[in-house]
């Protein structure tokens, strides 16, 4: 009897972990797409095309390559840290 409960608890813990990991991977995926788009996309591949637009006196493609991508990187890490803290709490796996 006691063993069954233990096994059930373990099974539940394992499925919680799986759901937590899945949520983490989804968040990672979204943030890494943004990471790729602002740097390799806007800053490199689409740089020439974006340069027809202007922002704060910068050509837009050039701005992403030298400033915009870096600002976005900072925001991405903080978004990840705060979203993960919420996920840790939601799934009860926080440290």
């Amino acid at each position: 009897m006691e063993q069954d409960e233990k096994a059930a608890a373990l099974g539940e813990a394992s499925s919680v972990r799986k759901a937590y990991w899945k949520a983490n991977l989804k968040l990672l995926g979204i943030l890494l797409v943004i990471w790729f788009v602002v740097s390799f996309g806007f800053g490199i591949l689409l740089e020439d095309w974006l340069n027809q637009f202007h922002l704060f006196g910068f050509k837009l493609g050039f701005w992403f390559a030298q400033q915009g991508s870096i600002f976005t990187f900072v925001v991405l890490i903080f978004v990840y840290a705060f979203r993960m803290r919420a996920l840790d709490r939601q799934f009860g796996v926080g440290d």
Partner: protein
Amino acid sequence: MDAQSLTYLFVGLSFALYIGIAIWSRVANTSEFYVAGTGVHPIMNGMATAADWMSAASFISMAGLIAFLGYDGSVYLMGWTGGYVLLALLLAPYLRKYGKFTVPEFIGDRYYSDAARLVAVLCLIFISFTYVAGQMRGVGIVFSRFLEVEVELGVVIGMAIVFMYAVLGGMKGITYTQVAQYCVMIFAYTVPAIFISLLMTGNPVPQLGLGAEVADGSGLTVLEKLDGALIDLGFTAYTNGSKSTIDVFAITAALMVGTAGLPHVIVRFFTVPKASDARISAGWALVFIAILYTTAPAVGAFARLNFINEVNETTYAETPQWFKNWEELGLIAWRDKNGDGAVQYRPGAPFDGKPAFDGDQRGESGERLLVNPTTDSSNEVYIDRDIMVLANPEIAKLPGWVIALVAAGGLAAALSTAAGLLLVISTAVSHDLLKRTIMKEISDMQELRAARIAAVVAIAIAGYLGINPPAFVAQVVAFAFGLAAASLFPAILMGIFSKRMNREGAIAGMLVGLLFTAAYIVYFKFVSPEMNTADHWWFGISPEGIGMIGMVLNFGTAFLVDRFTPAPPEAVQHLVEDIRVPSGAAAAQDH
């Protein structure tokens, strides 16, 4: 007080501070020596990481590099910051959760193999020594330029300072010194930048000044004016690059992934109390780095424009004083090719090689004469890229104390990075080689002594490399990032995100990535340097960017081999499951 005495004062005060911290933070066990007892506040760790990461090259050379590369310089800006996103999202929290001391230790345990650990140790030592030689050289150069001390003596003084806090205080000493060094460094970098931005555009924020209108009534922005001036002189426009898109892509990727795989950066995240702290700490690290990295392109563009305005088509007698000062040091040189007495700045090298002056001989205008063979280009002036940051205070006519500050900042940048690198080298030797592989029975006290001895030896080797820099140092920097990208990063990433990845796959992947990348770089840099042009590169990717292909090969090989070899043992699969959740994180422990 004159600039010289002020420099002595500032450098002396900053060194006294570092030594004070060293004495305060002496350590007594390996946990404190390796990971500062995992008690470092995430914001403090962010600052220390920023100082650890930003080397003499970031502080002294990067703005100059961007000034002369224009858009192409973006590879360094994005490459050296984007890696922190990978680090924060893919590596740092999981490695912290694992809770051990070193990167090779994780690879060895995760792939249940001493061979994997040894491959990782070799990569780590090679990457770190490549890097540290440049730092020691940087220390020597700052000493010789600002304090008129011989380069050799400068290196020895630098070694003595690092010895004090790295050997006594280990990671704990290094961490708190790096926090102080970050403050010195960022203050020294931003103060001149703010003044120059004010001078050029009237806007005190350099990041905005770069996009603002030049304060000369022309109504053009800094970048428009710079583009126009460069095109008139025959250069490529500043905001357009001359590298191919694929090469820019590959170099950026190799630098990003390489950054995330550098051991001395990764271990900094072992020092915070919890896995969730590792995530937020990476964010703080990037904030502190971004302050310098977004100032650098502004400094670069201002400096280039200033140089053109003040020097081009100016007679030698009318050039600013700093032009002549740096000419004395051989970092600027001018040959009046067309005999008009004025300086013409155009694309191309003015003469072959670095300036070799003809003794104290002076030309008609009073310039130092050169013995270098002349070139066909109409360019008459040679500028060493490194002087851009160092000359900034003079260019902006700032007071002596700012110059003194820049000297202290340059030393802080070089010393903080050197110390971080020396620590991972000594840790790899005492912990991964001795404790985990060769002499498993040694006590904590013996291991600590071994770590200190290893640190002393590493400092001595680094100092030797700084005094007698091998000719290849500048050329092997590409190695450090390429190898980290092609070997360590994929192995760690797969160790966390693939439960199925086994010993055979990981080792085969690391070896293939490592050998391919090393062979490509060695071939183009050393065996046939004359072939090092875009026509001969594979897919048009330069040796600087080849780490990206090495990384892809590493992943490909690993998954292929993994398919045909047995799954990792049950215990290892549990380990992977365990590091994926933050709960139950323990302090870094000995075994």
